[in-house]
């Protein structure tokens, strides 16, 4: 090996990103800049989109070997190891553990019929699935695309990892972006599908929920859901464990760590490594555009599903249910519930729907986890 000046400089240049960048990588770097902009300036779910965008940036610099697996004696790249938590399906359930520890299911317990809305608002999942099939995607890919309509990042990531990893970054980015865009996506649909009179409906106050009910709730939900649909165990199980740690009142320190430090650590790792899968050659495909469009369709039809059942419940209850709370069933907690609140108040300034929308809202988390479990049972393994 000779270390002549020119040779070495040449070697360094030849191994630099400038000499090796493909156009796809350069485009992806620009895309990551746009995502960073959206996360930081437009506040698009920054907690996940910022790490995703940065992961995408890192993964598209040429020659870094960040994603390379181990080779003989040589260990793998940093993002290869961090990605293992995604690959092995570990991070999304841990995020759900934190979400469970952060979620108050009280409004849902006070009005169990919220769960119907949380079911109806999964409608978009299946519409998008069908359209994806029609566009030529495989069933596995179509299911992964459809799950965007669940409006739940960890669920979407979990299912896609199991069924069709190639689409992981596109689906994750679409899911989180549309969650951030809920305040723009939902209101037009809400106004289109409901009458002013419906939107003006005031709902009776929710009853008080006892501590005991809240403690038993996670046990009941996990038992019933997982018995009915075993494939849903990692998601619902961890969600409900987190909720039990929260509500039991005797494990506060575990609950706090689950919803703060553990969740933050996992969020950083999950975001960066999901973003890192958005390597140029795979991401810059027509498929990605399709995914992004189908994702929007999924969100829209999930909103529609929730609203339509809301209208039905309004009618059946003799006008006691405001259909606007139906759209909150898509989950996207708590954004979608806030949208219901805002639209309700626009129709009737003294209307206060937030608490009523929180029921369907948290039901939607369970709903999309169940939908993911069904897809996994049908197409996984």
């Amino acid at each position: 090996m000779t270390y002549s000046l020119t040779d070495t400089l040449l070697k360094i240049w030849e191994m630099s990103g400038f000499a090796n960048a493909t156009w796809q990588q350069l485009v992806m770097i620009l895309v990551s800049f746009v995502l960073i902009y959206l996360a930081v300036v437009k506040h698009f779910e920054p907690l996940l989109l910022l790490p995703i965008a940065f992961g995408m940036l890192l993964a598209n610099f040429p020659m870094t070997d960040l994603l390379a697996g181990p080779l003989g004696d040589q260990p793998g790249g940093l993002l290869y190891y961090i990605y293992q938590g995604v690959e092995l399906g570990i991070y999304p359930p841990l995020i759900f553990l934190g979400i469970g520890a952060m979620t108050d299911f009280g409004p849902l317990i006070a009005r169990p019929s919220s769960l119907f809305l949380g079911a109806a608002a999964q409608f978009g999942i299946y519409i998008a699935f069908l359209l994806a099939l029609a566009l030529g995607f495989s069933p596995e890919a179509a299911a992964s695309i459809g799950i965007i309509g669940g409006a739940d990042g960890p669920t979407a990531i979990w299912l896609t990892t199991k069924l069709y990893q190639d689409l992981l970054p596109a689906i994750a980015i679409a899911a989180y972006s549309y969650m951030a865009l809920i305040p723009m996506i939902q209101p037009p649909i809400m106004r289109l599908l409901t009458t002013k009179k419906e939107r003006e409906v005031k709902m009776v106050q929710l009853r008080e929920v006892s501590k005991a009910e809240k403690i038993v709730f996670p046990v009941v939900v996990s038992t019933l859901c997982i018995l009915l649909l075993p494939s849903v165990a990692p998601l619902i199980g961890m969600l409900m464990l987190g909720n039990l740690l929260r509500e039991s009142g005797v494990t506060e320190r575990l609950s706090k760590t689950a919803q703060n430090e553990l969740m933050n650590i996992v969020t950083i790792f999950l975001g960066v490594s999901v973003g890192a899968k958005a390597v140029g050659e795979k991401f810059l495909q027509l498929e990605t555009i399709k995914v992004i469009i189908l994702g929007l369709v999924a969100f829209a039809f999930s909103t529609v599903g929730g609203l339509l059942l809301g209208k039905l419940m309004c009618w059946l209850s003799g006008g006691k249910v405001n259909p606007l709370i139906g759209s909150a069933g898509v989950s996207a907690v708590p954004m979608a519930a806030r949208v219901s609140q805002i639209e309700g108040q626009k129709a009737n300034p003294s209307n206060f729907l937030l608490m009523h929308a929180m029921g369907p809202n948290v039901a939607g988390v369970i709903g999309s986890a169940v939908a993911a479990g069904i897809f996994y049972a049908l197409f996984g393994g």
Partner: protein
Amino acid sequence: MTLLEGLQVLVIGLGTVFLVLIALSGAVSLESRIFNLFVKNRKEAPAAEITAKQEEVTVINASAGELKLINVDERTAAMIMAIVSDESQIPLSELKFKYIKALD
């Protein structure tokens, strides 16, 4: 997979989601009803509880206390209890400490 099969997946999938969530809804209602029964039976419960409380107090009087230490190590707590007892000239057996909590 044909579109027809896809449609079946739609029906089955959404149907199952509904089934599961309706089942859940039933279970949660049932749970609430059961708890409500208990609550009704315990309409006098608060009263009973108060009695229990008083018994507890008596017990505590005889035993210097059921003591919760919050963020306080026992050494400090012991010191505090001893100091309070000493300063106030009340024997420890007659002092009730509900809890000793560190502000930190």
